[in-house]
């Protein structure tokens, strides 16, 4: 018995000090890599650190971060949502259309947009929990269905800044104490979500369902309800991201936000949320979003082809999940072998 304790202690000290801290915290590691990358890019292209650039990068990253928080809730339960980009696009367009008609005050339009996002999330939730369609297939389908709805609403038209209230897109570059408004919003979302995940029963249920759905059932956690709520909240946050997208870009098409699902999922995965469910933090997802935003901007600033971005998303996803798998395999092997035999 004493020897078991000794083994455990030594295993931890082997991964000692600072290195050990990094090995255990994905968030720290990512932040460090991010800073190093930023430094390297800044050396190559000094305009990288100009206040304009920083504001635009962080604002866009904030939008992705908010959507990534929503996606994290879903991935924690061992599901996935491919349709988030279509939800964002549809909400952005619908809000813009509502505003174009001018007799709808902005807060109301925003609220309706966020409500729409939640409703779309609930549609996903019903298909997955009531009809037991695997989330990969269900959201593959709704990815296209929701996008089709956007085309329906757009009816061949697009929205540009003239259609929106004066100065609408200025909010995107608004700063408080030099911090962009969107970033403040994102930080607020991450804080609320993070606290809820850590300190509320519902938050822990998300982890429980993702970690071991069967055991969760025996404690009386109703996984289907939990998953449904995760999709509803995910949809709501996608709606928020959609609203912000409209403010950021001002120019909207039926195809707006196409391709963002991959970026969002990549952010979540690189941020340390396990694709197998049950572990990870929304802070990690947000840092992941910032990391990817930084890379996208770096491509721009270093005058590298934007088309490389897809490749980078793919490589990032593959790298993140591979290293997670390898590390987990190694630690499990070590634990098994260290058992006194």
């Amino acid at each position, binding site marked *: *018995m004493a020897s*078991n*304790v000794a083994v*455990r202690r030594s295993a931890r000290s082997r991964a000692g000090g600072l290195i050990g801290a990094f090995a255990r915290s994905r968030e720290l590691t990512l932040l460090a890599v991010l800073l190093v990358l930023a430094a390297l890019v800044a050396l190559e292209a000094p305009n990288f650190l100009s206040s304009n650039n920083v504001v635009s990068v962080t604002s866009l990253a904030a939008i992705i971060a908010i959507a990534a928080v929503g996606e994290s809730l879903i991935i924690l339960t061992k599901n996935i949502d491919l349709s988030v980009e279509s939800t964002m696009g549809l909400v952005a367009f619908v809000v813009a259309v509502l505003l174009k008609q001018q007799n709808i005050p902005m807060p109301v339009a925003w609220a309706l947009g966020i409500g729409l996002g939640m409703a779309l999330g609930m549609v996903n939730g019903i298909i997955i929990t009531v009809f037991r369609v695997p989330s990969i297939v269900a959201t593959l389908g709704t990815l296209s269905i929701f996008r089709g709805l956007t085309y329906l609403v757009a009816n061949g038209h697009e929205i540009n800044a003239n259609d929106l209230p004066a100065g609408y897109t200025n909010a995107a570059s608004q700063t408080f104490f030099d911090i962009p408004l969107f970033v403040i919003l994102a930080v607020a979302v991450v804080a609320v979500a993070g*606290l809820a995940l*850590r*300190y*509320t*029963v519902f938050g*822990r249920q998300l*982890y*429980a369902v*993702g*970690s*071991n759905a*069967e*055991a*969760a*059932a*025996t*404690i*009386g*956690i109703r996984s289907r309800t939990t998953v449904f709520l995760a999709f509803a909240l995910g949809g709501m946050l996608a709606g928020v991201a959609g609203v912000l997208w409209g403010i950021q870009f001002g120019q909207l098409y039926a195809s707006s936000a196409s391709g963002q699902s991959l970026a969002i999922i990549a952010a979540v995965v690189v941020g340390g949320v*396990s694709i197998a*469910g*049950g*572990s990870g933090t929304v802070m990690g997802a947000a840092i992941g979003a910032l990391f990817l935003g930084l890379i996208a901007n770096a491509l721009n600033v270093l005058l590298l082809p934007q088309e490389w971005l897809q490749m980078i998303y793919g490589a990032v996803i593959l790298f993140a999940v591979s290293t997670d798998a390898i590390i987990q395999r190694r*630690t*499990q092997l070590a*634990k*098994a*072998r*260290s*058992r006194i*035999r």
Partner: protein
Amino acid sequence: MTDGMPLAPNKGPEAASAPPPVALAGVSKRFAATQALSDVSIDLLPGEIHALVGENGAGKSTIVKLLAGIYQPDSGSVVLDGKPVLLHGPAHARSLGIAVVHQEPRLFPDLTVAENVFIGHSPSGRFGALDWGEMRRAADGIFASLSVHLDSSAVVRGLSMADQQLIEIAKALSVEARVLVLDEPTASLSAHEVERLFDIVRQTRDRGVAVLFVSHRLEEVFELCDRATVLRDGRHIVTAPTAQLTAPDLVRHMVGRSVSLFPRTAAKIGDVLLDVRNLTRLGAFRDISFSVRAGEIVGLAGLVGAGRTEVARVLFGLDRADAGQVLLDGKRVSFKSPSAALGAGIAYVPEDRHLDGLVAGFSIAENVTLPILPRLFPRFFTRSSRERRLAAGYSERLRIRSTGVDELVEALSGGNQQKVVIAKWLATNPRVLILDEPTRGVDIGAKVEVHRIISDLAAAGLGIILISSELPEVLAMSDRIIVLHEGVMSAEIPRAEASEERVMFAATGQFAEGTSSGE
């Protein structure tokens, strides 16, 4: 002393007249075609460890699940403090003070130990937020009171089965449990871990909790329990204090008749087929050396967790050894996969036929031919007549009862399913056959037939390794018995000198009379 630990109300002598805190009154339960329980009544008294004993299929597991609220009885009821209650589900049962530790731990691998202990009833602090500090402190307190060292903030993934079970028990103790049900808790524990568990169970009993201890290991029943109830075929047979019972009594009640197992026909022992030398796999077993000759049945005995299945897995190519050699016909072999082992003539009938042995959704014929498909159809195209003929042949030879070789295997009974698994491996023409708990979950009639088959195979010149936790089976079938204890060979006993006591001694770590394995 027990900081924050719930204590059961002090039960004095007047407790005898109070209704038992938990009881089952005349419960019956039917599952489709099977009557799992018929009119069973059991009282669980506080401050007592009550054993529930019976063969596989006697109904023990159903009793546990009824108490846990997973099933509801068809008739009769669960009675709490004299009043019948209907348990709506596991959470409800738990809230009423019934704590169940199931055979397989149901923990959340990604959550911490403390969170697992308190899942479902986590302590909350200000504004209703979870109080992590209190959770860790309380968990530490429980572990301390059990004299156990576990890091409450460690993640559960990777912890040993024994540690996981401790967490399950801590879970049970973290609520005001009036009864603690343990379902075959020692299945995966080493001898030392079993002792630790027993200490904890005794402490729990002394606190006034009623304990139900389900087991088929009679030695544990006598060591730990105060009273025992025997079930057979879903019926209550007898309940009596363990002091008034002997092991043969229990066996007789469990089985209902004296059964003599199939006597081995002596086979001609030939050359050495398999030679295992100093085989080691870190974390599983160490320095295992033995040989198997043609016509020989080598029994591999030991408590569950001793490492026997792990040895078999290495021999069959499922796992890799870290040191040592395996020689087949004198040539060194190292299998990287089951298909390689198969090609060399080694076959392995796994422990769990549902998970690993049979493909549900395939017919008998399809299952039987699965390992030899490339051999059977060298030109890729399958011919159903050829494979049906092969399967029918084995079906007849092994007396598999079915409606035909096209029948889906999941419709067969346990015994017949096991025979299909054996048939599958016989079809590969193995030279060495490893059987892992071949008669588990198989009724007496089929069990005898399986033994006959094994005996015939040895007579035909196969070398057989028989892994079994059933002592009578090992003793009756083996020419030699190798006993493993905590991953190490503790004895090699020839048939003539074998007895239950000798095997048991070695299995529990007593290498010679009076000594025990160092700790």
